[in-house]
């Protein structure tokens, strides 16, 4: 009971502020609503007992990535005429396609019977004691079975960092 109240609370916040995020005219408002969505998602992670991801979501997404976004929004001039913000016919097309995909995927979710349990809507969850506070398990898995992907991810981050610095650097004229 309490579980579903918490879930619907955070899910409502996430969906509403996501919808506001893609409709606001001011880019800073969009960024703030995206931060709200990400925080609500962090709450859902906590409700799913993923404590480490809850913290990582707040520190990395909200504290790192979104601050970067807000920096760039403030660096870049954005006074665009109102009519040019979004295009009308693309809006309708996007709504239509999104609705079609929603109906399709929704039918698949409701009718799925192939996985263990009795379909996705009434699938029994793992018992609560089967997944204790699992940060330690996550670390063991990350540095054991997934050590190679972890190292590759660190190389990816290094490459991205160098690429970002090179691209954002002021170009000096070659002698």
């Amino acid at each position: 009971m309490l579980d579903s109240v918490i879930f619907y609370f955070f899910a409502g916040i996430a969906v509403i502020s996501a919808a506001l995020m893609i409709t606001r005219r001011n880019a800073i408002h969009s960024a703030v609503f995206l931060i709200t969505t990400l925080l609500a998602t962090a709450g859902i992670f906590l409700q799913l007992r993923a404590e480490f991801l809850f913290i990582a979501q707040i520190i990395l997404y909200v504290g790192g990535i979104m601050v970067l976004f807000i920096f760039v929004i403030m660096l870049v001039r954005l006074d665009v005429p109102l009519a040019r913000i979004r295009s009308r016919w693309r809006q309708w097309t996007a709504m239509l396609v999104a609705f079609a995909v929603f109906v399709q995927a929704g039918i698949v979710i409701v009718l799925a019977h192939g996985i263990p349990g009795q379909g996705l809507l009434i699938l029994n969850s793992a018992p609560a004691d089967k997944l204790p506070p699992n940060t330690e398990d996550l670390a063991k898995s990350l540095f054991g079975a997934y050590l190679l992907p972890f190292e590759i991810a660190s190389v990816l981050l290094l490459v991205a960092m160098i690429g970002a610095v090179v691209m954002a650097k002021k170009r000096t004229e070659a002698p």
Partner: protein
Amino acid sequence: MMPIGHYLFLSLLLLLIGAIGVITRRNVIIVLMSIELILNAVNINLVAFSRYYGDVAGQVFALFIIADAAAEAAVGLGIMIAFFRNRETVLADEMDLLKW
């Protein structure tokens, strides 16, 4: 406990809202933010299945996706700054340097 379908529907909704944002907005920074929203929706899926199968592998994948999102944001915003310096705009339909 909550059935997993609820999490899948939440994830689906967030993903579609992000997709609508990518398609309709012209400001490239907001397009990038919509992509972050899509990655976030995928994370909800992974964590929900990780919870329901009692296996932490899904959480490991979600961590990798967060790392990916950080790399993507850094490179994307670097490109944005370089482009703005050259062309003084961030609108997607004015980015036609490679068109002829």
